[in-house]
Structure formats: C-alpha cells, structure tokens
C-alpha cells in the first residue's frame, strides 16, 4: 500500500513512530497528483516545491517536540479559502491573479498544526454550482467514472481526496457544496454547525449559509480535521463562543438507543429509487445494531429550494459586488467611463451561472419585490427551523439521502439550471437552519457511490460523526480510487 492511500490517522501514527517522514508522505501524494491530475483535474494550483520544503523542515524540527496529530499530513484547500501569498481564484476569471495578503482563520489553524498544503482545489465559480463545471479554468472529473461530475461546488476537494491526490481537504458548503461532492465521490464530508468554524477568509458566497468543513476518506480523519478548524474567532461576528470536545477521541460506533428520524419528504419524488434503497439499507443495518427508527415529517422542505435560491442569490449579489475591477483581480480593457468599466469588467469577469445568480439576487432585493421574495423566503426559513426543532424532539439524528441520485454525466445538466438546482434538494434545508450534517458513503449503485446524510441538532457534530462511524464500520472505509 502506498503512503498516499493511507488515512490521516494511520499516517499520523506512522509519523509518530518514525516509520515514515512527512517528506515521504508529501512526495507520495504529490506524485499521485501528478499521475491523476491529467484525468481528474482536481487542483487549480499545486505547490509542490513549497510543500516538500515545508515537509522537510518539519521532519527536522519535529524530531524532539510534541506534534499535532495532523502535523506533516498533506491537505488540499478549496480555492475560495484565502491563503496568504498563494493564488485564491474562486475558480473565476474575476480573481485569476488574486493573491490574498492574509490567511483565513482555518489556514492559521492548518498552518499552526504544521499540516502540509499541497495546493488549491477546483470548484464551481464562487461556489455556485453542483458539478464543478462552472469553474472558469477547468472541469474536474469524478475519479469513480471520469465521464461524470464530481459534484459541486467543492468538486476538487472531494475528487482529490477520492483519487488520493490529497489525504484530506477543506471545502465550503452553502447549500450542499461539501456533502454533495462527498456523496458523488464516495468520501466523508461534514458541513458543520453555522458558527462553529470561522468564515474569516472564506470568500463569501452567501454569508448566512456559508460554512467551511472537512472532507476525508474516513470518519476518523474527518473528525480530526474538524477538531482542528472549529472554535471561536473574534474576527467573525457569527462565530460561536463555546468549547469543543476532541471529536476523534470521542468517536463511538455504538448506536444502541440512537433515535434516527426518517423524513418522508426526503424519500419522495425526485429521488432515485436505488438511492432510497441504498440509504434505507444502511439505516436498517443500524436498526439491527440497536438504533430506533422514527418517522418524522418536515413539510416545508418543498419550499426549501426556492427559499434557498432567493436568500443565497440575494446575499451573493451583494457579496460579489466588490469585484468591480477597481482594486484587484480582472479589469476589462478599453472602457470609456466608470460605469462602462464596471459593466465590461463584470460582464467579462463572471461566468454565466454567477451572473444568473447576481441578477436573481439583485431582482429579489429590489424595491417593490423585497417583501414578495426575500422576506417570504426568510419566513420559509423560520418554518424550516421550527420543523427541525420539532423533529429533534422525537429523534437524535435525521437520516436522508445526501443527493437525489448518483453522479451525473459531465454536461448532462448544464443546459438546464433548474435541473441542476434540484440536485441540492436534500442538502439546502440544513444550511437554511444552520444545522450540522454529514455525508458518509453507504453503498454503490452501478459502481457509483451513494451518500447517506445525517442531520443533527446544532453543535451535535459528535453524534453525527458517531452515526457516520457506525455506517462506515458496516460498509468499510473508502479507499483511494484506483484507475
């Protein structure tokens, strides 16, 4: 078994026993990336020299002192997370040359733990999309089937981990952008409770929904990385000021007495039968191990997609207004006035999907329409929150499919935005309610992975990780895809 195939917790143990060096691990992962990138295209930027240099330094430095369990482990970073001195493009022409002068909060944590950043990962432009096809620079392919999408928007983050070109990665999730690609690529992806991971340095898409989270090939790695990045940050006013346990240490696959809610609304029309069957099979397995299954109802789910696309687009239209050609990034040539410069820069700098959402968001916020759209969407959000609260009086976690189908083919949904949006049906409610949710592989359909989503109460990540851990015990840890 090659080093790149090993999990972070295995590598961590090997490092502490000096069975290998960080340089060897890093080299193995980078060589794997060199081999797989022509087919997968997960990375936008690879920092081979910097990564190897840092790994060597670390190997010399850490011989004596205590190390963080993740020290020396390679990690890939979604390209909308600010990395000081390293291109952060959000997969947009608008930021093709943008190098942040500061690190995101999560990067301070990642660097503080001496993890090795291998590079920046592809995504849908400004995290808008469900297939990573909206990247300005390249398409990413699903390692399980190169003709299929890896999901999105954190498609690069999921594909790299699945392909073994990253041991773990960071993604961001606004409406499913971690869980959906995790599901499509057969890896574990956690969307944490809103406020548990600082958004400082995450280039904003929809501020009230965005959350950074970990992707890994197994639940333990996911728990380790989440434990590293969660925590209070005074630079983010929406950051929760609380203590967090050691999630990896707290992992426990005993589901005896765990009440698992099954919402009918997530197993209805629009969700593939094979996906429902696969998810329910995994849930029944847990039932056999002592979990209790409870039927619940989340009736406002049917309004969730509409509410989500209104709220997220409204916020995006404002968040993306700063990309105006004045200060950094792309500026059009040959403009005649300030307004002309704005128009040309934004017309040329943004891709179609981003422009579509800016227009949608601008419309729903405009005078005369605000009450009918934005305000109403916020009311739907309140209903969704209330229904979740009621559901969690009856159960500890809610189990649903993470995606309505397995990975679709590249280009399959590109002509039909609403069909593309429908792929988020299982995930958006979680962001609207600010809840944590995890996608864990629960089976395969025709060689393509299926993800089971557990949704929990706010700050119940340990419960979610434990439930996912139990599923993983039954199914087996995902391995780096061989191709």
């Amino acid at each position: 078994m090659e080093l790149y195939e090993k999990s972070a917790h295995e590598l961590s143990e090997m490092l502490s026993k000096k069975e290998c060096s960080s340089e060897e691990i890093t080299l193995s992962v980078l060589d794997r990336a060199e081999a797989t990138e022509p087919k997968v295209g997960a990375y936008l930027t690879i920092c081979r020299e910097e990564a190897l240099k840092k790994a060597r330094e670390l190997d010399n430095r850490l011989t004596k002192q205590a190390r963080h369990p993740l020290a020396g482990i390679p990690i890939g970073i979604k390209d909308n997370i600010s990395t000081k001195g390293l291109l952060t493009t959000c997969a947009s022409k608008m930021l093709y040359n943008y190098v942040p002068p500061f690190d995101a909060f999560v990067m301070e944590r990642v660097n503080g733990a001496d993890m090795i950043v291998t590079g920046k990962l592809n995504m849908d432009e400004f995290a808008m999309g469900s297939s990573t096809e909206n990247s300005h620079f390249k398409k990413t392919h699903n390692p399980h089937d190169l003709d299929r999408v890896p999901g999105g928007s954190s498609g690069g983050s999921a594909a790299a981990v699945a392909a073994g070109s990253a041991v773990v990665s960071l993604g961001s999730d606004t409406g499913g952008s971690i869980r959906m690609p995790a599901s499509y690529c057969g890896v574990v992806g956690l969307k944490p409770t809103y406020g548990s991971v600082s958004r400082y340095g995450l280039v904003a898409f929809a501020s009230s929904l965005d959350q950074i989270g970990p992707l890994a090939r197994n639940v333990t790695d996911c728990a380790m990385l989440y434990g590293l990045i969660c925590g209070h940050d005074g630079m983010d006013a929406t950051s929760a000021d609380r203590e967090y346990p050691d999630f990896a240490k707290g992992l426990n696959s005993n589901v005896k007495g765990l009440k698992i809610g099954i919402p009918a609304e997530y197993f209805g029309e629009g969700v593939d039968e094979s996906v429902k069957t696969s998810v329910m099979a995994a849930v029944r397995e847990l039932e056999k191990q002592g979990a209790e299954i409870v039927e619940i109802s989340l009736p406002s789910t049917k309004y969730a997609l509409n509410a989500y696309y209104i709220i997220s687009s409204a916020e995006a239209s404002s968040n993306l207004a700063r990309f105006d050609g004045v200060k950094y990034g792309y500026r059009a040539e040959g403009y005649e006035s300030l307004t002309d410069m704005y128009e040309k820069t934004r017309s040329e700098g943004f891709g179609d999907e981003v422009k579509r959402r800016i227009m949608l968001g601008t419309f729903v916020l405009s005078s005369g329409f605000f009450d009918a759209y934005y305000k109403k969407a916020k009311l739907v959000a309140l209903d969704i929150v209330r229904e979740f609260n009621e559901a969690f009086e009856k159960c500890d976690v809610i189990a649903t499919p993470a995606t309505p189908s397995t990975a679709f083919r590249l280009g399959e949904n590109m002509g039909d935005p609403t069909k593309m949006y429908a792929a988020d049906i299982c995930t958006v409610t979680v962001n609207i309610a600010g809840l944590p949710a995890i996608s864990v592989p629960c089976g395969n359909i025709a060689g393509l992975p299926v993800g089971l989503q557990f949704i929990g109460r706010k700050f119940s990540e340990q419960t979610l990780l434990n439930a996912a851990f139990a599923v993983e015990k039954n199914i087996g840890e995902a391995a780096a895809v061989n191709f």
Partner: protein
Amino acid sequence: MEYETVVGLEVHAELNTKTKIYCNCRNAFGLEVNTQICPICTGMPGTLPTLNEKVVEYAVKMGHATNCTINNICKQDRKNYFYPDLPKAYQISQSDIPLCEHGYVDIMLNGEEKRIGITRIHIEEDAGKMLHNDSFQGSLVDFNRCGVPLIEIVSEPDMRGSEEAKAYLDTLKSILQYLDISDCKMEQGSIRCDVNVSVRPKGSSEFGKRVEMKNVNSFSGAMRAIDYEANRQIEALERGEEINQETRRWDDQKGQNFLLRSKEDAQDYRYFPEPDLSTIYVPLEKVERLKAEIPELPNAKIKRYVRELGLSQTDAQLIAENLPRCRLFDECVKTGGCSPKNISNWILADVSKYMNETGKDISETPLTAGLLCEIITLIEQNKISNSSGKVIFEEIMAGNTDINKIIGEKGLTQISDNSAIEKIVNDVLAANQKSVDDYRGGKTNALGYLVGQCMKASKGQANPAMCKELVLKYLNG
C-alpha cells in the same frame, strides 16, 4: 402669495472613537493616503466586519441627549451601490430599525424656543475619498476614511427657513461637543449635511414636493443653499410650474444648485439585513448607565445661567454654545469670589477676543479659572483698575502667571486712599485751569479729560471712580 419654507436635515457626524467601526484601524484625519487601512476596511475578499461597541455607546448617548427612544435591540443593513470609494460596494448602515428614534431638540432663535423633531439616529460607516491629480490621468482613491464611524441624524421637516436650520445645526453641534463624541470640524468634513427643502403657501398644512440637496459642507453654506432653493421653488411656482421631487447638487462657490437626479433615476439601494453581523443588543442597564453619563447639556445650562446666575439670555447662549468657553465659565463660577456676570463679561470680551485672534484653545494657554477669578476679584475689590486687569491678562497669556509679581513690577496697585487721590486731583486741577473753566462754561466733556489726566498722573493706578467723584465735587462746588 406668501410662501413658507419647510426644511428637514440629514446630518452626518463622524464619531471620534479611537478605532474604526468594523476593524482596528486608527480613526484619524489628515494622515498620509492609504496608511490607515487593512484588509477589512478595504473590503478584501473573505474579510468580515466586527462592530466597535464604542460606536453604539456614542450613538446611544446622542439618542439620549436628543430625547430619543433607544432601540436597544436593532440590526445593521447593507446599502448597495457601486462607487470606487466604497470598496465592498455596499455601506453597512441601518434601514428600518435605527438605534435611536422619535426624539427632539429645542432650538433658540431670537429669544424664542422651538422644538425640532428628530426622526431617527442610526450608525453607519463612512466611505473613502476620491482624489484627482493633474499629473495622473484618471482618479485615485484614498481608503483612510473607509470605516470611520458615522451617525446620521435625521430631523423632521420642522424648520421654517434657513435661520431655524442654522440654529438647529448649531444646537446639534454643541450637543456633539458636550458629549465629546465628534470633533465637529466642518473643514475636515466631520459634520456634513443633506438638506431637504420644500415650500408651501403660508398657512397651508400640506407639504410641497421636496428637493434634496447634496454637497452642503458648512452651516453657512446650508443657509445659502436653503435660501437659494426656496427662492428657486417659489419662482417656479409663481411661473405656474410644478416642483419635481429630485436631488440637486449645491455648488457653494457659484451659489447655485444643479440637478443631480430626478425621482425616476433614484438609486435602488436594495437594503437587506447585514448577514455578517449579529443583532445589536444593548442591555437596558447599559442604556441607563449611558444616560447617567450625559453631562448638563447646552439648553439646560442656558436656563440655569439665566435663572440662577443672572446672565442675560444672549450672554448665557454665547457662553453655553461654545464648550471651551463654557468649561472655563463653569470652573470660574465654581472657584468663586467674583460675580458670574463679571466672569461672563471677561470671557465674552477679553478671553474670546484672544482666542479669536490667536486661534488658540484655552487649554493651550497658561490661563486657568483660578487666574481669571483672581483678576476679576482684584478689580471687584478695587485693588486694581479694569485697565490694569487687562494688562495682567495679557501678561498671563504671555506666560507670566504670578499676578502679585506683575502688579508689583508694573506698579498696578490701585490708589484708593482718599488723601492720595485728593492730592492727585488737586495737582491736576491746578495745572488745568482752562479745562476747569471750560466745564464750568458748559463744556461737560472736559470732565473726562480731567479724570484722564488724573489717571495719567497716577500712571493708571488711581481709582478712576474716586477721581471722578472728587473732580466733580470740585467743579460743582
């Protein structure tokens, strides 16, 4: 037809907090361009604002001082528009729930008090500044001012004409100064205002169409702008035209305003709740504590000066509207030993004159309340003359603060000894027989000349009142 001018004002005041509203950059004026900036106030991707609590405290104080209801639970909103001096392309402000609302201030004009309603006071961030340079084709932008905290104070349309508007602005300014929450330096743009003007037939209870004027940068400019706009509207109405609701730009140098945009072109700012910031919550105990910290405000002071200290309305207002003057006056009254009326006279005459001529602040001079009281007391006790008092005042301002030494060195002790005065008077009368005859012949102004000669003979030390009395006694005797 006789018209009435209706004015409402939106005043923006920069708060003098140490740091900016959403980051830790210094809040300072006049420093080298783009040196007081960071990724947050320049709106770099991924940065987030965190609210400076001092800004909320200052705004709550202003709310209390203007009798507002404090919305101790409120939110911040984004106001979206594109301009190069606004790096995020939105300004964080407050829309439907301001921090303070439904207040009022009382203004004093020609001895009459009038109440002006305050619609709302909200907090927001300032934008940067565009710079235009001949050596460079295009525009440059200085972000130092980005994120400087502002309060916007919106009045009801309660003012009738430019004089009331000026009185209102003066009142707001003195309140801001008393609370020490703004530098109030017009020339640095720390107070700016937008002016809303409409006219209507006198006696009408309905408002006319209102015109908003931007770019009004001084209080006197506001008066000119209001007068100009009211005339423009009246002339238009007289010609039978209708007034359009529109925004116009005031050009103070030309003394004219120009159409900026019509109602149809009004910007849609697409306000929505700022998702990066949590709800503002000021505990009620804190709201009360901030209220208790409010000092005695100008209007209360004026009333007290008139009622308890016997100052005239005009003098009381002149003292109270200027914080340094007022502080000196209050301290002198506290020091005591002399009459408030005399203190007021000294401050409004000699002290003010000195400040105006030198441009200095009282705190920058050696003058203290103790020294000023000492001078006034010496005069009241007839130990020195009024003119000697002025000599001493000038010496103090020059850095010579030992009053006894000044009196000794300059020989300023007043002669109030009867026999000594008698001798001086007798000598002067003897030497000026012609003036004595003139007076007796009806030229009464000879009296002044004779008393003046007494003062001259005594090198200014003779008690002028006693000299006058003795001279008169002789002349009429």
